[in-house]
């Protein structure tokens, strides 16, 4: 379900059957997939499309919209000639998504960071626990309903 404008894009075409949305803005390609397909999308990007490097993984909280969270993977080919942003939207009822660690080992810490700040659980992650904040910290600070300043924190 990609827009017409992405018809000639070879990267988008390779992911077309699992893509739920896509766009090309500021010369940056974004492909959205369902959370269940994220591992498959990452695997294809790495093996078939040559996106050898995972630059970063992060989250965005779209509160109060649902699905509330976006998990965003930024991929690059060697030499930075091509870039790809893979995105999956996760529902707030059960914020879970498959971990990208089997494909990119560097996803380990980045996904821990997303878990730490957004409370999104990465299934089959080898070491899922808080990375920046202390273990006993309550709440997930980068969620939009977490105050910047306040009595408790």
């Amino acid at each position, binding site marked *: 379900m990609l827009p017409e404008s992405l018809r000639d894009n070879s990267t988008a075409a390779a992911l077309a059957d699992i893509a739920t949305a896509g766009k090309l803005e*500021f010369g940056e390609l974004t492909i959205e997939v369902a959370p269940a397909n994220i591992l498959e999308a990452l695997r294809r990007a790495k093996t078939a499309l040559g996106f050898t490097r995972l630059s970063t993984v992060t989250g965005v909280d779209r509160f109060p919209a649902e699905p509330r969270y976006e998990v*965003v993977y*930024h991929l690059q080919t060697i030499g*930075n000639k091509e870039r790809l942003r893979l995105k999956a939207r996760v529902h707030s009822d059960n914020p879970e998504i498959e971990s990208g660690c089997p494909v990119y080992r560097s996803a380990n*810490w980045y996904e821990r960071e997303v878990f730490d700040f957004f409370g999104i659980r990465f299934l089959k992650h*080898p070491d899922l626990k*808080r990375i920046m904040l202390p273990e006993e910290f309550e709440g997930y600070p980068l969620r939009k309903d977490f105050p910047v300043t306040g009595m408790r924190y």
Partner: protein
Amino acid sequence: MAIESRIESGVTSALEVEQDYEKHIKDPQAHRTMVLNMGPQHPSTHGVLRLLLELDGETILKAAPDIGYLHTGIEKEFEAKTYQQGVTLTDRIDYLAPLSNNLVYCLAAEKLLGLEIPPLAQYTRVMLAELTRLNSHLVWLGTHAIDIGAMSVFLYCFREREDILRIFEMFSGQRMMTSYFRIGGLALPHPRGWQKRVKDFIDIFPSRVDEYEELLTGNAIWMGRTKGVGYISLEDMLDLGVTGPMLRAAGLALDVRKDAPYSSYEKFDFKVPTSTTNDVFARYQLRLEEMRESTKIIRQALEGMPSGSHQADAPGIVLPDREKMKTQMESLIYHFKIVTEGFRVPAGEVYQTIESPRGEVGCYMVSDGTQKPYRVHWRGPSFGNLQAIPRLIEGTLIADVIAALGSMDFVLGDTDR
């Protein structure tokens, strides 16, 4: 020992090491390893990094880095500041390369705004970003040498660093937290007499690099401590997200300045040094070579500095001229609006990367069309590089940890944000 299997599985978790420690306490005879807690306050970790090391004699069996001691919630704070105010936060992320951070943040916002930056501002940005690289590499060289035992290099490096900080002060009024690059251009026009100050510095600097080399390159102790130490394969580094000089010392010329040029880097003539020996010594030589290349870029920027305005022609985004504010009504209104409520940035998302002294810095900026960023994510190069620590030091001697960590050149402010 099961060290091979450990290394194969990749990143060690602190939990595993702690469990081994428990076993050792219960039954010291059966479990003969020792767990050493290195840091968070340790001079060679250059900040507050905690390393859990499991030792068999002097050999490291497992290593688990533990970060987060310097976490200050900068990503959350971006969301509570206007776009222009956010520039001041970027200085404090990687405090040894404030101008590189200013640059990536401004470039991301300018991409969203569709701003055209005048050539003078672009060249100045390149020049100051390269001076930042020199500044950062000098701190790295000085502290790295001190870690390994060469005291005097530190003093020489800081002598030159002082000159660079004076140049920063001249431009921005600040030595370290410069905030000199603003969305739309530069904060202030060029100061009077800057050319002479920069020229004097780059005229003398290459001879100073030779001086460091004389102290270290042929030094038997230095070679003994660095050659063949801290090897990590290129495949591992790519897989674990390492960027910057570490990667280039393994032979891969990955440099954002060449691969995806920003701020008119494509107009400059410079080489990306690489090496293939891939040890601490190679990383040292590579950074010295980078310093020489940066000096060339600074010279080109100085000699080819275009004329024109230091800010884009974008009323409502850049602060108006002080004189105009006293004579023109619109300028006064714009000033008031920018200062009190900021400017609106069209909705969208960009991921901008640049090459900082430590590697690839990325700024992922999401705008929802208001005056404050909806989300800013910072990809710090030190964070990516630190993930490779277990791979880098597991199986080596504890004395080599200091050299190997030093060769990574991480900044904990950049890691923890």
